[in-house]
């Protein structure tokens, strides 16, 4: 990171995060550390089969087990008619199956709950769970999206009559925001001076793998039912609990205490949460559930999982003329809270930073008998970015052009902002030239290209590839009217309140409930500047619907760009009130009061009052203007006028050992333009974590199912997450072209690294071995896949790889948990 002189204001200061000491040491309250007196523990008995009819559930042995309070099916609890909500009906005729709290007659994915055991201890509940006998009749699993759409396919939900959830289309020609892609393609096909490049990319299924497993505690012993949950969305959860179970919203208090990560994986209204509420109401005792890691990987929602058919047309001189996008998106067995909309969030990002005159996006969402998919860091935008950045490289290869040059030829130049894109979004600001220039310099692009040429000429067994991704994203979700036009079931505003305490300290309440991002630090910095109070005097309150009644929570890089601005708006109101009170106390006209660094002074005099003195005066209320309430406190709700559009240039130097296929990420440089930086340290942390996650998609992670629909790598034993030892030290930098759509000029950085890095890596791998005849390697680009791709390109046939087996992972080595043999039998 480039360092500049430490700023005098808080904005831009690299403060260490004030929440870290408690979060990292665990000396805080995560949901699982909360156990009210008399708590009962719930264990979910899950289906091992992907698709099966339930003939019967024999609870007798479990009911008789020590400590067991009860064993319940959905019918036993009277919740068999309850369906969990999907808040994003992307089309009016979208097919939407009921998503039950527990499967009733049929299970639709391996890991779906069928019954729950409630016992006095978690161990007793777990032990008794093994005694619940469920009689299943296996049904054909539905695993492949294309097969699922074919005539005669087994239906996941026969009552829907199809495995198609919905097809959503955006056509710039029809929308009047651009030309017709069909015309662009036929024109290009007919024109010898044009090219048409078609590719199919696969976005493998990923598992969000947040650090703290999901957990929830419901205490019914009070006037309000209190729900603690390890969730990203306490406010949405409260409303949705009312919608789902009919508990009046005012009778619910939802608390997201400290939450250990989410990455979108904790945006959900969980069957387990609703079951805990139903059980707590029925048993009149607190009920608690904490998942195991294996349960989390199996049953918490997954991400990505798309097949992308991309067609790009261009003139031979490199000018792109059209982009056609056909997606199949795997919803899994049911619709998550925003699941069907996730690919649609990507619809507007396929054109990325380029001036593409015609774009058509068609996405068909498909049901399969797999764990449902929903938002995962980037949600739709990583998929879009991958497709466009990969196809730009393919186009460059087709035209024999330097891929960076080709991008430059097509991107929106700095002078062209604000720029309205082919999908009708207006990018307020950006400077692709600047970010790219800096990235190239840090990377030493030209020297690496020379090294690449030398290695190629030498026939070196280690080949070098340069991976490029010049990404942008839309974040700061979201202008409410845009969400309305997309039929999204909520607005996109955020709320904030500021309370000026009698002693001069400041309480700030935000509706953006953090789960590890550092809101407390960044928001304190903003307030310190806005009100001219010390950073240490600001306390950020969040995540409890009692203290922070209004909010739309944290996802889509929205906390700063929307939640932070709401705080600015509230602070402006505090300052206006304080100014009025200051004028009164200083016997001056309000017009003569100046506010600077926490001091209200009468222009041209040395008379003044500090904001803390005014807070005290308002509290005492002995002397204040007649037309004012004795309070400086203020609330604000901010609805953004536009998305924000961070962008950046990411460059990866990738070595491929052509003998073994091993990919080594040698160096990674990124220069991100995220507008105004509130705290560079937090920004760097977000970028690092994001890069690790995006690189992991390219190189390491994939949720694999066998032909029976069993998740075969459902533990950290073999769901290969990289560790620090697998990644290089990232070379990151930030440039700032302030957003013009909000008063701070901020854009959002939470998802940038994840969105940008995946195509950079895959482009780099291919750049290293394209000259050997390799055109594509599916993600994750494991050493075996790379080796096979090279063998095949050289005309040597190789064996099929069994994707459905365990492999020697972390704790279990060769023991396959799905198929144990040897000593463990």
């Amino acid at each position, binding site marked *: 990171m480039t360092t500049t002189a430490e700023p005098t204001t808080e904005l831009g200061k690299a403060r260490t995060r004030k929440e870290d000491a408690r979060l990292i040491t665990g000396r805080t309250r995560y949901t699982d550390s909360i156990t009210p007196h008399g708590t009962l523990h719930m264990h979910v008995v899950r289906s091992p089969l992907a698709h099966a009819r339930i003939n019967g559930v024999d609870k007798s042995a479990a009911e008789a087990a020590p400590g067991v309070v009860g064993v319940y099916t959905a019918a036993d609890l009277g919740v068999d008619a309850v369906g969990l909500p999907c808040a994003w009906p992307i089309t009016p005729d979208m097919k939407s199956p009921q998503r039950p709290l527990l499967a009733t007659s049929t299970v639709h994915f391996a890991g779906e709950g069928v019954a729950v055991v409630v016992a006095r201890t*978690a*161990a007793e509940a*777990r*032990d008794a769970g*093994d005694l619940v006998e469920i009689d299943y009749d296996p049904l054909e699993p539905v695993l492949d999206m294309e097969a699922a759409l074919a005539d005669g396919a087994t239906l996941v939900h026969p009552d829907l009559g199809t495995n198609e959830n919905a097809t959503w289309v955006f056509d710039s020609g029809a929308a009047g925001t651009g030309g017709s892609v069909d015309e662009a393609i036929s024109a290009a096909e007919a024109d010898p001076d044009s090219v048409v490049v078609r590719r199919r990319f696969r976005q493998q299924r990923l598992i969000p793998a947040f650090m703290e497993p999901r957990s929830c505690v419901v205490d019914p012993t009070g006037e309000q039912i209190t729900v603690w949950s390890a969730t990203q969305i306490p406010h949405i959860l409260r409303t949705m609990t009312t919608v789902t179970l009919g508990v009046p919203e005012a009778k619910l208090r939802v608390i997201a205490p400290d939450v250990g990560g989410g990455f979108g994986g904790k945006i959900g209204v969980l069957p387990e949460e609703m079951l805990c509420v139903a059980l707590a109401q029925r048993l009149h005792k607190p009920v608690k559930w904490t998942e*195991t890691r*294996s349960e989390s990987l199996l049953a918490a929602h997954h991400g990505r999982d798309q097949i992308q058919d991309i067609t790009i047309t261009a003139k031979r001189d490199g000018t792109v003329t059209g982009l056609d996008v056909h997606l199949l998106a795997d919803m899994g067995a049911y619709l998550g809270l925003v699941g069907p909309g996730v690919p649609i969030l990507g619809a507007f990002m396929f054109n990325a930073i380029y001036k593409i005159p015609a774009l058509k996006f068609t996405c068909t969402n498909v049901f399969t008998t797999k764990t449902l998919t929903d938002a995962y860091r980037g949600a739709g935008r990583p998929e879009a970015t991958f497709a466009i950045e990969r196809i730009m490289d393919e186009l460059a290869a087709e035209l024999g052009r330097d891929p960076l040059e080709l991008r430059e030829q097509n991107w929106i130049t700095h002078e062209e902002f604000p720029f309205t894109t082919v999908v009708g979004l207006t990018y307020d600001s950006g400077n692709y030239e600047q970010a790219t220039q800096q990235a190239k310099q840090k990377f030493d692009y030209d020297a690496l290209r020379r090294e690449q040429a030398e290695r190629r000429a030498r026939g070196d067994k280690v080949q070098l590839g340069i991976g490029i991704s010049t990404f942008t994203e839309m974040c700061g979700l979201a202008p409410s009217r845009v969400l309305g036009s997309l039929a999204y079931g909520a607005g996109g505003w955020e709320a904030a309140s500021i309370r000026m305490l009698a002693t001069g300290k400041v309480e700030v309440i935000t509706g953006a409930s953090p789960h590890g991002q550092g809101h407390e630090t960044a928001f304190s910095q903003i307030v310190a500047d806005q009100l001219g109070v010390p950073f240490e005097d600001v306390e950020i309150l969040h995540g409890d619907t009692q203290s922070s009644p209004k909010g739309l929570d944290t996802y889509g890089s929205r906390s700063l760009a929307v939640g932070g601005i709401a705080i600015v708006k509230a602070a402006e109101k505090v300052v206006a009130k304080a100014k009025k009170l200051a004028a009164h106390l200083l016997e001056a006209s309000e017009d003569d009061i100046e506010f600077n660094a926490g001091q209200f002074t009468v222009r041209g005099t040395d008379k003044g009052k500090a904001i803390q003195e005014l807070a005290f005066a308002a509290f005492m209320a002995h002397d204040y203007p007649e037309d004012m309430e004795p309070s400086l406190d203020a609330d604000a709700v901010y609805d953004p006028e536009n998305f924000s559009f961070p962008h950046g240039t990411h460059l990866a130097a990738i070595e491929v050992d052509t*003998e*073994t296929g*091993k990919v080594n990420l040698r160096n990674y440089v990124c220069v991100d333009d995220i507008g105004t930086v509130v705290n560079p340290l937090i920004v760097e942390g977000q970028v690092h974590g994001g890069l690790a996650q995006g690189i992991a998609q390219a190189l*390491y992670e994939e949720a*694999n199912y066998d032909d029976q629909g069993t998740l*075969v*790598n459902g*533990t950290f*034993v*073999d769901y*290969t*997450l*990289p*560790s620090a*030892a*697998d990644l290089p030290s990232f070379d990151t930098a930030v440039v700032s072209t302030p957003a013009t759509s909000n008063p701070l000029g901020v854009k959002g950085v939470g998802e940038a690294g994840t969105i940008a890095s995946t195509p950079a890596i895959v482009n780099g791998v291919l750049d290293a071995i394209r000259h050997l005849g390799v055109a594509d390697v599916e993600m994750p680009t*494991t*050493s*075996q896949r790379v*080796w*096979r791709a090279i063998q095949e390109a050289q005309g040597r046939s*190789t*064996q*099929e*790889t*069994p*994707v*459905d*087996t*365990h*492999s*020697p*992972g*972390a*704790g*279990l*080595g*060769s*023991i396959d*948990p799905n198929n*144990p*043999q*040897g*000593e*463990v039998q």
Partner: protein
Amino acid sequence: MIPAKFDYVRPSSVEEAVTALRDAGEDAKILAGGQSLLPVLRLRLAAPSTIVDLGGIAELRHIAEDGDRIAIGAMAAHHDVMRDDLVKQHVSLLSQATETVADPQVRHRGTLGGALAHADPAGDLGAVALALDAEFVIAGGSGTRTVPASEFFVDYFTTAIGEGEILTQVRFPKYTGWSTHYEKFNRTAQAWSMCAVAVALRLDGGSIAEARVGLTNMGTTPIRARGVEAALVGQQASEDAARAAAEHATEGTAAPSDADAASDYREHLARVLTGRAVLAAAG
């Protein structure tokens, strides 16, 4: 983690442990560092009636010189083995291979004896013990017996340790002055081996006087690559010799197929890694 219920005993001597095992019957399990046993218990892939924890037996943690051998107690932690000066000096291959096992946390808990008794074909230490002709000291109801490495590894997760028996010590001949290297190939930096090759060479001038080569995860047990050894002896330690010898690497193997590597890829890796290991050992 909530495993199935079990009884727990923590003896303080080998005799007590043997008695505890006898008393507990066939469903008893020995606990060493727990790094392989606990994941199995966590997923309820095993449900032993009794766990006999060797952690209280101080005498099993020694690393000592014993004549022309280095004797290592079964409960010596990977971390201690890898750092030990005697091991570095006389059995450097073991030290090198142990360094590649997992991560520091696992290496502080996991033990040499546990790893070898567990006999996971993807484990890194079996190939070393086999290549170096280690001996295994096993205590049981009728006393103590010593088993050579060539007879210790029986099958997938199966060793010569019988019911009611405890591995107490592993004895390595001294390979003082030998040139050694452990070449490991895995999916992520701290994972088990997809394939690995252990090589020890006694160099005489520029030529290879003696060679010991072991393969990890190329069959249901660790495998001694005798064909490679034979091809190396008498050769100059050159790239050509290494490559030619590596062609023998898959003799007698039965490479497993899994998601990380189908058998053809594993066989290819075995050849490539053997060549590299020989060259790296030769320096």
